[in-house]
């Protein structure tokens, strides 16, 4: 079974629209990571969240970790075609020997 549940599995949005991707764990997380993968390429690190209630932003992407440290959301404002790809959340429980990934969210942005 997946340790991390990610939703939605896929998303198609019109350019300029906002969108949110969610990542949920049944257990408290030590660290929550967001990655982006462009089709056929490697993973690119976006953000890491460690503290309950933490929020980080990079350009038009904002990620939040809830107070219980069990749910994170990734929000993209005014989406662009360059945002298209697969977004993966990952989490560790204190060491990378047990690093879990969600199943990913495939994002397409229509021009």
């Amino acid at each position, binding site marked *: 079974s*997946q340790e*991390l549940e*990610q939703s939605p*599995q896929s998303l198609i949005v019109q350019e300029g629209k906002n969108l949110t991707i969610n990542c949920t764990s049944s257990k408290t997380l030590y*660290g929550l*990571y967001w*990655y982006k993968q462009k089709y*056929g*390429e*490697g*993973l690119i*690190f976006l953000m*890491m969240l*460690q503290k309950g209630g933490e929020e980080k932003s990079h350009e038009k992407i904002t990620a939040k970790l809830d107070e219980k440290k069990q749910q994170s959301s990734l929000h993209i404002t005014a989406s662009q075609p360059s945002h298209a790809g697969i977004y*993966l959340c*990952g989490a560790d429980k204190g060491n*990378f*020997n*047990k*690093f879990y*990934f*969600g*199943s*990913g969210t495939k994002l397409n942005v229509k021009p």
Partner: protein
Amino acid sequence: IAGITQAPTSQILAAGRRMTLRCTQDMRHNAMYWYRQDLGLGLRLIHYSNTAGTTGKGEVPDGYSVSRANTDDFPLTLASAVPSQTSVYFCASSEGGRAFFGQGTRLTVV
């Protein structure tokens, strides 16, 4: 700065053949990992190594072996490939709470 380099980029392999996927990092990270990525399943850990000379099994280790003779290299070997090992393989290293990934190796076993 190269980061993590994987080779080959892609490979088509006959079932039953032996294959080694190469992974090299130039960041001197102690911890390294091999993942496979399959549609709908996300990334799953195959094997890991916390430091040179040590390795451990991840979530899906069967059919794979690794070695860690030095800090920089972490090859993944398929002793006798089977079609279910068709996947995209990612090598990663970690340091200071961050993981770094290679570009991936797309392997097709026919």
